[in-house]
């Protein structure tokens, strides 16, 4: 019901404004969305921009998970690691990932993954994955994953750990067979939140100078050319892809942690 009201109001104001550079008609935006492979303003299609953005996010996110999960397991389990990391965490946590974007641009310039590996000119996707963007996505994804993992480890019921120890579990097996599976639901929550934040951060990062492709870049570019139908269609796509990513992780976590939902 609510979406219909919003669309109705949008159409009403669009007709009244009668200015596509301010607010385009609903039809114009839909027309953009049903042609996802059509070139836009000589920058490539929606599909291409989404793939570029998603590749950046997925790569940065995988890095965040690869470092956030093991580190979270250690910090959650061992007091030594907790003492080592908690002051840094408390300072860094309130620092929004977007605040890091200018810093990352200054440090990493516009170096891409391809350039790091010595490939100067390339048409592959790696030519579009800038280190600075990777860094802010990593940063944005890292904290939710890391903090949720710590929380997961800390809330593993002591009785599970003691039972396993009584049945002859050694430390590394205790980690693999008890602590990790018991914290998995919390870890997956962290992944879901982290992926959402990464997706938000990449859009912001792509809007800044030095960006050459991606859905955030497309938004900024279409704004400058006052192509509002492209802009609004991009926004709808961002929402849709974000929701899809979130459902993907949720689908995974529902399947792996049925027991948690069923346990009272």
């Amino acid at each position, binding site marked *: 019901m609510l979406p219909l009201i919003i669309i109705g109001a949008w159409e009403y104001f669009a007709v009244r404004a009668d200015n596509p550079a301010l607010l385009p008609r609903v039809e114009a935006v839909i027309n953009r969305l049903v042609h996802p492979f059509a070139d836009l303003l000589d920058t490539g299609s929606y599909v291409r921009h989404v793939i570029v953005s998603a590749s950046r996010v997925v790569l940065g996110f995988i890095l965040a998970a690869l470092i956030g999960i093991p580190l979270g397991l250690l910090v959650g389990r061992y007091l030594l690691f907790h003492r080592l990391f908690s002051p840094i965490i408390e300072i860094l946590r309130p620092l929004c990932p977007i605040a890091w974007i200018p810093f990352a641009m200054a440090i990493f310039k516009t170096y891409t993954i391809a350039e790091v590996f010595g490939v100067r000119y390339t048409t592959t996707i790696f030519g579009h994955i800038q280190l600075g963007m990777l860094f802010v996505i990593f940063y944005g994804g890292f904290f939710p994953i890391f903090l949720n993992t710590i929380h997961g480890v800390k809330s593993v019921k002591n*009785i*599970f750990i*003691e*039972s*396993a*120890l*009584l*049945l*002859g*579990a*050694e430390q590394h*097996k205790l980690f693999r*067979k*008890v602590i990790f*599976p*018991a914290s*998995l639901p919390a870890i997956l929550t962290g992944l879901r939140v982290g992926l959402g934040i990464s997706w938000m951060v990449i859009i912001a990062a792509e809007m800044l100078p030095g960006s050459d492709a991606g859905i955030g870049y497309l938004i900024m570019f279409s704004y400058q050319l006052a192509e509002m139908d492209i802009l609004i269609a991009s926004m709808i796509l961002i929402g849709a892809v974000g929701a899809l990513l979130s459902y993907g992780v949720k689908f995974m976590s529902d399947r792996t*942690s*049925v*027991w*948690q939902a*069923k*346990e009272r």
Partner: protein
Amino acid sequence: MSFLAVNRVKKVYWGERKEEVIALADLSFACEQGEFLCIVGPTGCGKTTLLRLIAGLERPTSGEIHIQDKIVDGLNLDTTLVFQQYSLLPWRNVIDNVAFSMEMKNINKKERYAEASQFISLVGLRGFEQAFPYELSGGMQQRVAIARALAHNPKLLLLDEPFGALDERTRHRLQEELLTIWQQQTKTIVFVTHTIDEAVFLASRILVMRDRPGRIETEYKISLPRPRKRRSKEFLDVHIKIREDLEKILTTDDKGGDAL
């Protein structure tokens, strides 16, 4: 020396206001191989603490515990403990829970499943191998917990009010099953309970504990023939005798006439 020897064990905790709480004071007893020893006593008398010390989950403040002449110094593979609370790993099905200890010993899957199935049958749960803990009733979960402990093949099996949360009928049935297992497997069992009826039904010997601080008050040898009949005169006589003693302990406490 006895199979299990507890020598002048004392356990002190630090309370919330940094005061000393003596959970166990100079507690000593012995248990022979193959015995079914029950420990009864009022809530908070340190029964659970005692079991945790024997299991090696905690260490005594002073005194020593020996199992087969070896001093208990942390967890050891010859002892395991079944908790009162449900302790199955909820993401594992029944057979993977029962096979857990074998998995820890790196026994291959085929072998450990074959072995685990036998223990599952032993506790009367054949057909539930693939079920998850949340699909089982409390009684069934405790059966799995017992099967899991038995699959570990401990010489000494400690049980901490394992049937405490179950209804009476289930409790009685599991008591009978546990006795059968004890007779077949010739285990040494130390079983903590706060119901006298349960102790008299199961035990070959009963230790009665009292609280503040926790220590052993008296002991009874139960030589009633098995299977024991709960409504027989002999059973009731023993039951009443222990009940009277326990009441005496509780009333001296109420008057504040604590001996220490």
